[in-house]
């Protein structure tokens, strides 16, 4: 049987629904030692901001039960260096690139998008309004409906390429945010970014993460991610890229059933850099066993 794993999200066409999540594969250089990036649905760059950011002081990460907290703080090379050094590299890898943008003002989002819009290799933008580790652009925008609306609207004006807004799970009605994205012309949402969390050292009484709080990722948050995706899927007609705790192909299928058109994988890359390959193979086999011709038949195929 011939299985069609390709997926369309807005104008973005990807050869399979496995996307490498922002912040978990840098700009592709290191993960390319394990994966031929052209065979992966897409890669999302580490969040790019106008100016370079050195990120938060260490300790930046800590392991938690079936999860991890991180407060990298959007450490990134900045727009200029990204264009000069990272884009050529991504071109060499022949990968489908989604550029993730983080910013502390609407103008910054727009400026980054407009500048990057000229690069053919960038097929879509993921707008990160939900990083829990920086105040502006994260905790402030991500949980404010009107800010998310404005950002979507203005970024929309700056590009014709696919716009994906990456939503925060740290609010009570994620579907309201998806609605605003849709209303303001966004093509898709990705859900979820990390949950705010913390941990203390009981000897020093200090937070283990220097930034005090961090973002929780990994299998621990999978049930929460699935519920958020299901909520959006049941209420709003907009493509969803699902993520949060995906570890294997079964999780990919589960996310697609819950409403995702494609998925992103983050934390798992740290542990198993071949995970993307294994998932592509696993979902193809699942399709064969279940006589599914097009993987997108799975999207939102839940039986409630």
């Amino acid at each position: 049987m011939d299985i069609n794993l390709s997926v369309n999200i807005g104008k973005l066409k990807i050869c399979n629904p496995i996307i490498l999540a922002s912040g978990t594969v840098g700009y592709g250089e290191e993960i390319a030692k394990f994966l031929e990036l052209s065979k992966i649905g897409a890669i999302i760059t580490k969040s790019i901001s106008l100016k370079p950011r050195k990120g938060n002081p260490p300790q930046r990460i800590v392991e938690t039960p079936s999860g991890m907290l991180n407060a990298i703080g959007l450490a990134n090379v900045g727009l200029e260096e990204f264009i000069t050094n990272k884009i050529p590299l991504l071109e060499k890898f022949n990968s489908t690139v989604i550029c993730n943008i983080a910013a502390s003002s609407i103008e910054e989002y727009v400026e980054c998008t407009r500048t990057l819009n000229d690069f053919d290799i960038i097929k879509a933008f993921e707008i990160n309004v939900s990083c829990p580790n920086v105040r502006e652009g994260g905790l402030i925008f991500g949980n404010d409906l009107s800010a998310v609306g404005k950002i979507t609207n203005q970024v929309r004006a700056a590009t014709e390429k696919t716009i994906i807004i990456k939503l925060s799970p740290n609010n009570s009605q994620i579907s309201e945010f998806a609605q605003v994205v849709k209303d303001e012309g966004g093509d898709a949402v990705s859900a979820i970014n990390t949950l705010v969390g913390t941990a203390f050292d009981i000897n020093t009484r200090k937070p283990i993460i220097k930034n005090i709080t961090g973002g929780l990722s990994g299998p621990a948050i999978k049930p929460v991610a699935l519920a958020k995706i299901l909520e959006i899927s049941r209420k709003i007609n907009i493509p969803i890229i699902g993520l949060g705790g995906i570890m294997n192909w079964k999780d990919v299928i589960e996310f697609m059933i819950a409403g995702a058109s494609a998925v992103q994988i983050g934390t798992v890359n740290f542990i198993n850099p071949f995970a993307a390959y294994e998932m592509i193979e696993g979902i193809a086999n699942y399709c064969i066993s279940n006589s599914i011709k097009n993987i997108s038949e799975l999207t939102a195929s839940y039986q409630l």
Partner: protein
Amino acid sequence: MSKIIIENSIVESNERINSNVYLLKVTSPEIASQIGVGQFCNIKVSDTDYPLLRRPLSICDVEDDKLFFLYQVVGVGTEILSRKMKGDRLNILGPLGNGFNIQDDFETAIIVAGGIGIAPFPFLIKKIMNKNIITYVGFKTKADIIDYGLKNCKYSTDDGSLDFKGTCVDLLKSEGKTLNSKCKIFACGPNSMLRNLKEFCSDKNITCEVSLESVMACGFGICQGCAVESKNDDNYKLVCKDGPVFNINEIKI
């Protein structure tokens, strides 16, 4: 830079050395053929999602297709590791990081190791057998002492239960009057020890390379979790990719 490999290695032995230190020997031909002194591996200690992250361990020694790791049981991951037995499989990612530089021009290698900080040195010593080697190694107490793979050891114990009373840096200081620019120091141990050592090295103007530890998620440069402050510019270095071995003046400890 060498290729990074993921290998399903086979446990050959996992011997208890003292109350909570083990010597693990695995067959891992691909990694063994590539790994250099001072590099490390990132080990998946269970085949479930718990514990979630791999555990970084320095390469302690290499013999043909066998890798050796010397590790201390401190938490859940190393505890699980300590229960592995001959025949068990271990998923190992490596070789990782930049190791010690043994190409430069030195005649005497001064090794300074605090506690389990001795782990990277047996392999180093093997590779620099043509040099003079003096090893200063400090433990809490006599019962903790390990001499696996070391050479020309001078011991210190915090409680004075064997030989010099104090830290290995104290011992080095007390004996180190004769050090000169033909010496190079290789060090590994707790940060407090390394800070002490740094002072000493700049006083004496001796080159010193240290192997650092940091909590790590990936071990190969994609998570940016292992940042350490750089001395030269205002940026961070990654322990896993830029290190774990740094010139002691390169980084803020």
